[in-house]
């Protein structure tokens, strides 16, 4: 099977986000593989081990993403492609998806796995839009997948409920938490990852012009959520407290 994983380098979830003149400060921040993409990588490796074939990691980003890609190779993926998007103006989900589509139209993918969302942008759009563009089936937010005779049996998470789907390949799926427990990259895996093929492509290699993939969205403003203020603890008889709560919700918080 030709198994592909689309993955992204993101901020470490432990990092505190800082904003300076409307831009997120990246200096000194730690970066990781997007945690949902880690589930996708793990599942891809398990599918390969069961059905044979190859796992190829594909990431759109800058050269800094090499460390995260190599980590994916250290987990057990076979090869990787990094598509550099430094020349893209105002890149957004459309840009990433358009670049990926240009790459995938020349590939014979049986299955493409990705994360349900990236923990930075959080749009959850790239996967489904890519599938639409390639004209293949897609299922988002999966928590289990079994493949047999060109068909996939999938369990997906629907806001806490389960949906069971049978669907034919080729297919794009996005991984939800609970799909698996990603392995640690082992020491021998890390040492081997050095020698695994990592191909770097740019827009020219994909016959794309910069303006073809320019972002379609415009960020108007970026700000941090307001600091949480100390809560109010009501006192007195329960009836009085309830009355006070209702009046506060009505007049102060204006939510009812």
């Amino acid at each position: 099977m030709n198994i592909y994983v689309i993955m992204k380098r993101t901020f470490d979830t432990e990092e505190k986000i800082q904003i300076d003149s409307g831009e997120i400060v990246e200096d000194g921040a730690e970066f990781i593989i997007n945690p949902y993409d880690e589930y996708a990588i793990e599942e891809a490796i398990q599918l390969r081990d069961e059905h044979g074939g190859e796992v190829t990691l594909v990431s759109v980003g800058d050269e800094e993403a090499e460390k995260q890609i190599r980590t994916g190779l250290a987990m057990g993926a076979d090869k990787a492609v990094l598509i550099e998007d430094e020349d893209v103006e105002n890149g957004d989900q459309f840009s990433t998806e358009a670049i990926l589509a240009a790459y995938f139209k020349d590939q014979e993918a049986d299955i493409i796995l990705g994360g349900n969302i990236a923990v930075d942008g959080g749009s959850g759009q790239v996967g489904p839009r890519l599938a639409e563009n390639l004209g293949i089936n897609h299922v988002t937010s999966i928590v289990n997948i079994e493949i047999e005779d060109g068909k996939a049996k999938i369990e997906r998470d629907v806001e806490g409920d389960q949906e069971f789907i049978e669907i034919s390949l080729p297919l794009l799926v996005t991984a939800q938490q609970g799909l698996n427990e990603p392995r640690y990259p082992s020491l021998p895996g890390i040492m081997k990852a050095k020698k695994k093929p990592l191909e770097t492509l740019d827009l020219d290699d994909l016959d794309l012009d910069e303006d073809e993939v320019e972002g379609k969205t415009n960020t108007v403003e970026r700000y941090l959520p307001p600091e949480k203020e100390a809560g109010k603890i009501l006192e007195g008889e329960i009836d009085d407290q309830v009355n006070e709560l209702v009046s506060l919700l009505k007049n102060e918080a204006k939510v009812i």
Partner: protein
Amino acid sequence: MDFSFSKEQLMIRDMVRDFAQKEIAPIAEEIDRTERFPIENFKKMGELGLLGIPFPEEYGGSGGDTLSYILAVEEIGKACGSTGLSYAAAVSLGASPLYAFGTEEQKKEHLVPLAKGESLGAFGLTEPNAGSDAGGTRTKAELKGDKYVINGEKCWITNASFARTVIVTAVTGKDDRGKNKISAFIVPTDSPGLTIRSEYEKMGVRGSNTTELVLEDVEVPEEDILGDPSKGFNQFLYTLDGGRISIAALALGIGKAAYEAALQYSNERKQFGKLIGSFQAIQFKLADMAMELELASNMVYKAAWLKDQKKPFKKEAAMAKLFASESATRACNQALQIHGGYGYMREYHIERYLRDAKLMEIGEGTSEIQRLVIAREIGCPR
């Protein structure tokens, strides 16, 4: 100068950090309280290749460098000093001398299971009356036919209860100058006459396995002598030089754990209507901790780098161990002070960090011995 780590070194550090925080840190308090050796975590560490980082693949290792190994010790130490100590001793004291001085057969037979993590390494040097004063070694090995017969006692030997073999140093005779000739022997732990007891009650690193060895007419075939029979003394000095970098890294990990906890607490704890971190009295403590640990990091990484470059590192390893361990104890002590009454409580981990850090000033050569080593290296008269 280039202060950056390679991609592999960073990947190894990140993986070990992730593993240590998820698998080791959650049981650190429990193993300290109950003095339980966390063998299950050593199995997992073996599967991930952590016990073979600095050894080539042909000997079951991962083919990494000293610096990668040192970063791993630091991350494990940050999660749990006990686990860190047993890890550092297994690699630096148990496996390293086999790699550095063993014959091809000895490496295949004894290093491979250690590097793969199937067994833990142990190094039997210290005796009730001899540690850094190796000249005082009393354990004797006498050649009878084609076998050595070893008699003696060893104390404070890390990991021996979980080891397949233990390297034991013993006096084999006198050299031309009338000084004791010391050799190292590879002794299987199931040898008749060898008793291994772990009955010590320690102040810190309580989850680490610390044992006493009693050797009564233990027979070892002549070929199980490790390396050059007449250079056992120099061999273990070299082994200890390498071990010191790992103890320094372990101290660094413990110190950083205490410092990070104190910094976080200072950003949360309010007194007199203000965060205590806004008081200069607390800020100065934190600034000193940050500075000392940063300086210690530089020295530890430099010593490891020198070893990787095959350059002399004896002086730098002693400096790294001395400075990192004393900085770590100071950092833990100040972190406890910043936490006040909470710091004195087991629940906050700081008191454990302090108890664990104190050993770093003692094990594998006290701070005083490190100063002696440095004094010799800089050319003080003997």
